[in-house]
C-alpha cells in the first residue's frame, strides 16, 4: 500500500474544495438532523397531548411569552451578515495567499491529457459517461435532473415540514433527495476525483496510477448473452428489455408505494403520482446500469443502428 497517489490527488489545489465539501456535507447533515431530532421529539410530545398542542408555541428554540416574535433586521441580522462577509473574506484571502490557482501548459490539441478530468463538480456527470452513452449521460440525464428538481414542489404535496427541520414527518422526501444528492451525485463525484485514474480506470486508494496499465475489459451487450445476431431482432429485443425494465420498475415502485405509503397514493393526483414514479424509476436506472456494467460487464442493453442504451 502506498498512499502517495491519494495524497497527491487530495492536495491538488483544484481538489481542495471537494475535500472541504467532504467535510462540510457530513457536518451540515448532522447539524440539520440534530434540529430534526429536536423537532421530532416535540412533535411526538404534542401528538400525545392534544391539550398541550393547543397552547404550545411549537418550536424547540428558547421561548418566552413576553418576547417579540420578530426582531429588527438592524442590528440583529445585518451585524450577522457583516460578520459573515468578514469571515468569508478572511477565509478567501488566506486561501488565495497560500494556494495558487492551477495553470497547466498552454492548450495543445495534439497533446491529450490522461486522465482528462472535468472540474470536481462535474465529475458526477463524467462518471455517468461510463455507464451510459453521451446522449443519455451528458444530455438526457442532466436535463432530467434539472426538471426533476424543479418538479419536486409540485409532486410533494404534504403540508408537513414546511419551514422546520423534521425527519419523521418527511422520511420519504428527505430519504429520496439524500439518495439522489449524496449517493448518485456526490459519491460519484468523489469516485471520479479520488478513484478514477489514467484511462478512467479504477485505482483504489493505496494504488499508484499506472499509465501503462492495460485491462482487457470484455464488454458484452445484453443481447449477446441470448445469442441474437440479426439487427432487427437485436433492436426489438433491446427495446423490449429496456421498456420492460422501466415498466417493471415502475410497477414495483407503484406496488411498494401503495403497500407501504397508502396515504401518499391517496393524497396525490394521478399526474403528480405518475411523474413521481417516473422520476424515481429514472433515478433507479443509474445504479441498476452501474451494477450491470461493473459486476457483469454489460455495456449496452439496447443496441440499434441509431442509438444504444
Amino acid at each position, binding site marked *: 500500500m502506498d498512499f502517495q497517489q491519494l495524497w497527491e490527488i487530495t492536495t491538488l489545489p483544484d481538489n481542495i474544495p471537494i475535500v472541504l465539501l467532504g467535510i462540510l456535507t457530513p457536518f451540515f447533515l448532522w447539524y440539520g438532523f440534530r434540529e430534526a431530532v429536536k423537532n421530532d421529539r416535540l412533535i411526538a410530545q404534542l401528538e400525545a397531548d392534544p391539550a398541550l398542542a393547543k397552547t404550545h408555541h411549537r418550536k424547540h428554540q428558547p421561548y418566552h411569552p413576553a418576547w417579540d416574535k420578530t426582531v429588527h433586521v438592524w442590528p440583529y441580522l445585518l451585524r450577522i451578515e457583516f460578520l459573515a462577509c468578514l469571515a*468569508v473574506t478572511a477565509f478567501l484571502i488566506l486561501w488565495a495567499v497560500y494556494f495558487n490557482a492551477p495553470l497547466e501548459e498552454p492548450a495543445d490539441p495534439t497533446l491529450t491529457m490522461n486522465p482528462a478530468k472535468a472540474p470536481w463538480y462535474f465529475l458526477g456527470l463524467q462518471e455517468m459517461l461510463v455507464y451510459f452513452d453521451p446522449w443519455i449521460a451528458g444530455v438526457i440525464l442532466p436535463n432530467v435532473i434539472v426538471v426533476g428538481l424543479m418538479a419536486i414542489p409540485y409532486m410533494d404535496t404534504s403540508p408537513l415540514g414546511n419551514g422546520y427541520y423534521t425527519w419523521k414527518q418527511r422520511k420519504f422526501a428527505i430519504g429520496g433527495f439524500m439518495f439522489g444528492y449524496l449517493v448518485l451525485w456526490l459519491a460519484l463525484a468523489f469516485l471520479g476525483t479520488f478513484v478514477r485514474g489514467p484511462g478512467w480506470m479504477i485505482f483504489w486508494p493505496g494504488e499508484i496510477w499506472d499509465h501503462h496499465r492495460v485491462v482487457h475489459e470484455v464488454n458484452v451487450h445484453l443481447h449477446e448473452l441470448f445469442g441474437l445476431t440479426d439487427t432487427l431482432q437485436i433492436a426489438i429485443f433491446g427495446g423490449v428489455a429496456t421498456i420492460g425494465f422501466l415498466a417493471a420498475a415502475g410497477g414495483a415502485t407503484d406496488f411498494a408505494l401503495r403497500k407501504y405509503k397508502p396515504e401518499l397514493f391517496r393524497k396525490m393526483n394521478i399526474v403528480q403520482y405518475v411523474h413521481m414514479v417516473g422520476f424515481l424509476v429514472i433515478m433507479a436506472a443509474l445504479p441498476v446500469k452501474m451494477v450491470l456494467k461493473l459486476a457483469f460487464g454489460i455495456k449496452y442493453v439496447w443496441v440499434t443502428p441509431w442509438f444504444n442504451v
Partner: protein
Amino acid sequence: MVPKNELDTPGLGEVVEKVQEAKDLHLKWLKNPFETELWRSIFRHKVDDAPRNRSLAVLSNVFLHLHPAKVNRDAVRYTFTWGMGGITFYLFLVLTFTGVALMFYYHPTKADAFRDILYLKNDVPFGNFMRNMHRWAAHAMIITVWTHQMRVFMTGSYKPPREFNWNVGVILLLVTMLLSFTGYLLPDDQLGFWAVTVGTNMARATPLIGHEGPLGPEIGATAFNDIRFAMLGGSIVDANALLRAYIWHCVALPLVAGIFMIVHFWRIRKDGSISGPAPVMLASEVKTAKGRR
C-alpha cells in the same frame, strides 16, 4: 456687530465673526455628525435608537431594503439557514469584483490569453492574488449553492407558497455551474482546454441536434451545423470558442444570474420572508384541514 444697511459691503468685523462661526459649526458637526445637513441628505432618518429608526435604517436604504424591517426571531440563529444563501450572494459579489479586476488585463484571443495569465501571475501587482481569489471564490460558491439547496430541501422551504422560488433557485444553481464551466476555458491552458473539449463533446450526442446523437445525422446534423458548433463557434475548441466562453462568462451569464437573483430575492419577500423556523405542524391536524376543505 449689526450692519447699518443691507446694501453695505461687509466689513472686517463681519468677516471675523464668520470665521468664529465656522469654528463653532465645525465643533458642533464633529460633536454630532448625524445632525449635519450632509448626513441627513444621505440618510433620511434620525439615528437615535428607536424602533422607527431601526426600521427606517433598513427600509430607506437601497442596498439594505432587500431585507424586511423585522425577521422571525429564530431565523437569525445559525442553526436554521447556515447562512449559505447569503454567503453565496456575497461570493457572487466577490467574483464580480475580482472578475472585473482580471478583465483589465485579459484579452480573449488565442495569441494573448495564456500570456495574459502569466502576466497576471508574475507581474501585475496583486494579479496572482486576484486570480487565486476569483478561482477559489468560484469553487466556494459551488459548495455554498449545493449546501444551500440541501438546507432548503431539509427545511421543506420549497413547499407552498415558495414552489416557484425553488425553481428560480434550481436555475441559479445551473447558471452557477455554467459560469464555472465557461470560466474554466479562459486561461487557455491544457486543463481548461481538455475539460471543455470533453464537456462540449457530449453535446455532439444530443438527440436530433447533435451530429453523433440519435437521429441527428438522419435529419442532416453535421459537425458544422449542430449544437456543438453553436456552442464553440466552430468544430473544434479554438479562437471562437475562447471568445464565446469569454462573452458568456463575463457578460451574458452574469446578466442571466443577476436577473434570476433579482427574482429570487424579491420572491423571498413576497412569499412571506424566510420560511422559518416555523411552528411545527402535526399529522393529526392535516386530516382535519382536509375535512374542512
